C-alpha cells in the first residue's frame, strides 16, 4: 500500500498585528506500486489506460517522423502487460491507429501480440496534413471513455508544430480533458510554441519539454512511460483547510515544478478547498500555502491551515500550519529557509518566462532586466540547471548584481529549452 507523509516547514511566529502565514508542505509517497494494479489487487484487470498521441502532420520531416515512430515503439515496450492502451495519429484531425475498431472499447489490453500489432501500426505512419491538437485530445478522451473500468488515464503527446486550430477550439478541448486524463507533452524541433503546449500540459497535470533532436526521442518517451507506469496511486486531491474568517492567498506546487493551483480550487466544504494533483508514484512534491488570518493577541496560538492529501474521501496525511503571535522580534523576523527558497524559485520562473516573452516581442530592455534578475535568482537559490540554460541566452557580466547582455545569436532550441524548463525547481538541501 502506498504511504504518504506530510512535513511542514514554516516560521509560525507572527509579529503583533501580523496576518500572513507562509508554509512549505512536502508530501512524500512511498510504496506506490505499479499503475492500475494496486486498486484492484487482481493481476490482469488493470485500471490504467495509456494513449500515445503522435503528430503525423506534413511538417514532420523524414528524420523527425522516423524518430517519433521509434520513440512511440519504445514507449509501447514500457507499458506493463494488462494495461489498456491505444495509439493515436494526429493531423488536421485524429485517427485511432491502434486498436483498429469502429465502435466498442477502443483500448486494447497490452500483451505480446497487441504490442507487436501496435508497433507495426506505428511503423505505417506517413507525414502529411496539418496540426489540430484539440481534435487529438478530444479523440483521446473518447477512447478513454469507451472503457469505463479504466480510471487512471494518461497520454503522451508529441508534436512538432504550431496548432492550426482556432485558439478557442483548443481551449475548449483542453477544458473537456481537464480532470479527465493527464497528458505529458513534448515538442520536437523548434517550430512549435512553448506557450501553447505548456497550456495543455499544465491543465492536464503533465510535463512539457523540448526534444531538440530526433535521436533523443526514444529515451525521452521511454522515461515518460516508465514514470507513468510507476504511478500506482491513480489520483489524489490536495486539500487545504483554513479557519473561518481566513483567506487562502494562494496554493502553489513548487517542486518538482511550479504550478499555481489557486484557480483550480473546488469546494470540499465551506472551510476546505480541494486541488487536483493527478497520479502519484514514489516521489515528493512541495506545496507553498499562504493564508491570511485576522491578527490575534500576542501569545495566542492557532491553526492557520490543515494541508491534507486525500485519496477519494480518505485523508491519508495531514500537515499542520500554525500561527503564534509573539513580540520577540528574533522569532518573528526569520523567514523560513524553504519558504524563502521557493519564493525565489517562483520569481525565477516568471522572470525567465517574462524575459523571453519581452525578447520575442523585441523589447530588449525589459528582456535584459528580467533575464538579469533571473540570473541573479538562479545563483541565489542554487539552481545550477537554470544558470546553465540562462547562460546560453545571455552573457553574464555580474551574476550577483544580475547584470547581463542578450546574446546576439541564440540557438532557438536553447531559448525554448530555457522556457520549457523555467518552471523546474531545485530543492534546498535539507
Amino acid at each position, binding site marked *: 500500500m502506498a504511504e504518504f507523509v506530510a512535513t511542514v516547514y514554516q516560521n509560525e511566529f507572527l509579529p503583533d498585528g501580523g496576518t500572513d502565514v507562509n508554509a512549505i508542505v512536502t508530501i512524500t509517497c512511498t510504496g506506490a506500486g505499479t499503475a492500475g494494479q494496486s486498486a484492484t489487487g487482481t493481476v490482469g484487470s488493470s485500471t490504467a489506460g495509456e494513449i500515445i498521441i503522435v503528430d503525423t502532420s506534413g511538417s514532420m520531416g523524414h528524420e523527425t517522423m522516423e524518430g517519433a515512430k521509434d520513440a512511440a515503439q519504445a514507449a509501447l515496450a514500457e507499458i506493463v502487460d494488462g494495461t489498456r492502451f491505444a495509439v493515436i495519429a494526429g493531423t488536421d484531425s485524429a485517427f485511432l491507429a491502434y486498436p483498429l475498431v469502429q465502435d466498442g472499447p477502443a483500448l486494447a489490453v497490452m500483451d505480446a501480440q497487441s504490442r507487436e500489432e501496435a508497433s507495426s501500426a506505428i511503423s505505417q505512419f506517413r507525414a502529411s496534413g496539418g496540426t489540430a491538437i484539440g481534435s487529438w485530445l478530444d479523440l483521446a478522451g473518447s477512447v478513454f471513455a469507451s472503457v469505463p473500468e479504466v480510471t487512471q488515464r494518461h497520454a503522451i503527446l508529441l508534436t512538432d508544430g504550431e496548432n492550426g486550430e482556432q485558439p478557442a477550439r483548443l481551449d475548449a478541448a483542453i477544458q473537456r480533458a481537464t480532470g479527465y486524463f493527464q497528458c505529458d507533452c513534448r515538442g520536437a524541433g523548434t517550430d512549435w510554441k512553448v506557450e501553447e503546449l505548456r497550456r495543455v500540459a499544465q491543465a492536464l497535470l503533465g510535463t512539457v519539454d523540448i526534444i531538440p533532436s530526433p535521436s533523443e526521442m526514444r529515451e525521452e518517451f521511454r522515461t515518460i512511460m516508465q514514470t507513468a507506469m510507476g504511478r500506482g496511486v491513480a489520483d489524489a486531491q490536495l486539500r487545504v483547510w483554513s479557519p473561518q*474568517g481566513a483567506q487562502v492567498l494562494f496554493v502553489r506546487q513548487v517542486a518538482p515544478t511550479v504550478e499555481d493551483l489557486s484557480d483550480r480550487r473546488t469546494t470540499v466544504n465551506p472551510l476546505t478547498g480541494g486541488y487536483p494533483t493527478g497520479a502519484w508514484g514514489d516521489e515528493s512534491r512541495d506545496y507553498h500555502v499562504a493564508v491570511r488570518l485576522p491578527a490575534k493577541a500576542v501569545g495566542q496560538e492557532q491553526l492557520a491551515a490543515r494541508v491534507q492529501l486525500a485519496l477519494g474521501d480518505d485523508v491519508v496525511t495531514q500537515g499542520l500550519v500554525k500561527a503564534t503571535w509573539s513580540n520577540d522580534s528574533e522569532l518573528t523576523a526569520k523567514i523560513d529557509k524553504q519558504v524563502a527558497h521557493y519564493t525565489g524559485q517562483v520569481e525565477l520562473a516568471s522572470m525567465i518566462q517574462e524575459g523571453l516573452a519581452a525578447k520575442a516581442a523585441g523589447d530588449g530592455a525589459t528582456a535584459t532586466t528580467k533575464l538579469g534578475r533571473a540570473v541573479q535568482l538562479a545563483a541565489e537559490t542554487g539552481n545550477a540547471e537554470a544558470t546553465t540554460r540562462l547562460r546560453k541566452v545571455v552573457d553574464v557580466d555580474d551574476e550577483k548584481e544580475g547584470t547581463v547582455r542578450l546574446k546576439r545569436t541564440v540557438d532557438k532550441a536553447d531559448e525554448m529549452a530555457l522556457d520549457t524548463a523555467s518552471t523546474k525547481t531545485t530543492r534546498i538541501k535539507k
Partner: protein
Amino acid sequence: MTEPRTCPSCGAAAPGESNFCEECGTALSADVLVSGAPTTPAPEAGESSPIEDMDSGPISSATTNHSATAAQESAAPVACASCGGSIGPDGYCEQCGVKALSPRDHFREQPAPWVAGVCDKGIRHHRNEDAMATSASPDGTARDRRAVLVVLDGVSNTDDSQVGSLAGAKAALAALTVPFPDGLGTDGSRVAAVTHVLTNAVKAAQAEVVAAATPEAANPASATFSAAVLEGDVVSFANVGDSRSYWLPDSSPGVQLSVDDSAAQGLIAAGMPRAEAESSPQAHAITKWLGQDSEEPTPTVGQLRITEPGWLLVCSDGLWNYASEPAQLVEQIRRTGTDDPAALALALTDYAYGQGGQDNITTVLARIPGPVLVHNADPTPTSKEQPHG
C-alpha cells in the same frame, strides 16, 4: 444558544446558532477572542473535573509517566472555547483553528458559592504544571463554615510535574477535609495539633509528587505547596516554596500570610526592599520544595483570626509576580468590584494574562463575609504565629 444575541462588534442582530456575525464576521463569543485566558467554559454538570480524572488531560511534552497516555485517547471531544466548533483529532478547532485547551491546561472549581479557583496554563508555558484543590461547606456565613484552598506549583524544568502537582493537591485536600483537632484545648496545644495536620497534608502531597517520577528520573517532579484552611473565623495556613496565601480584608491593609522559601525572601529578610529582591536574578530560586530530591519538607505554618469581611487568596507565582504587595492585589480586586469568587478568580487570571502570562496562573479565593463567632475573651485578633518559621 437560542436566546437572541447581538454582535459585540457591530451590534447587528445575530439570530440562530451561527458562531460568527453575518455582518462583520466577529466571533459571537467575542470576549473570548479578545481576552486571553479564561476561554474555557466551566465544566458542565456531569463532565468530570480534571481533579477527579487527573490522567485524562493531554500532556503536550514528553512524559515518562505512561499511565497518562492511555486514558487521554478516550477523552470525550469538547467544543471549542472560542467559537463552539468541534475539536479535531489534531487538537485544534475544526472551525476557527484555535488550539483547544486541554482540561489540564485550564480548569475551574467552585465547591460552594463563596469559594472558587482558576488554574490556567498562562501564555508562555507549554503546559500547566500548577494544580489546585478546593473544598468548602455550603454556606460561607454559617458558624461551622469550613473551606480548604490548596495550590501546588510544579517546577517547570522537571519531568511530570503536572502529574505530581495535581495528585499532590488532591492528596493534601484529602488530608485537610477532616475538621482540625482541638488538642488539649489550650491555644498552644491547638496550634500544635493544627500544625501536625498541616504537616501531614504536606507529607501526603510530597508522597504523590515523589510517586510521579520514576526513581531513576533525571529531573524528578517537584512542586511548591500552599494551603489555607478556614474554620469558623480562623485561617490556618502552610507553605513550602513560593506559592502564597494572602488575607485581603475589605477595609484594612492586606497581609501576605505565607513566607516564601525563596532566594528573594532571604534577601528581604536580610533587609533588601521587596521589589528589588523579587526582581533580582535568582529571586525565583526556591529553597524548599516537594519532590524526590527534597527530604521531609517542613512547612511554614501559621494562623490568623478573621475580624472583618475580605478575601482569602491562595495563588501561585504566575499571579503574584504581577502583584506581589497585598495592596496591589487589593487594587485589582477593587477594580473588578465583584463579590463572586469565580468571577474574581477569572478576572485576576485575565489580569496576569494582560501582564504577560509568563507562568502558569492559579488563583483560589474564598469570599469571607466577616466573622461569625463572638470572641469575648479575645478582643484583639490573634497575630500571625509561625511555630516552624
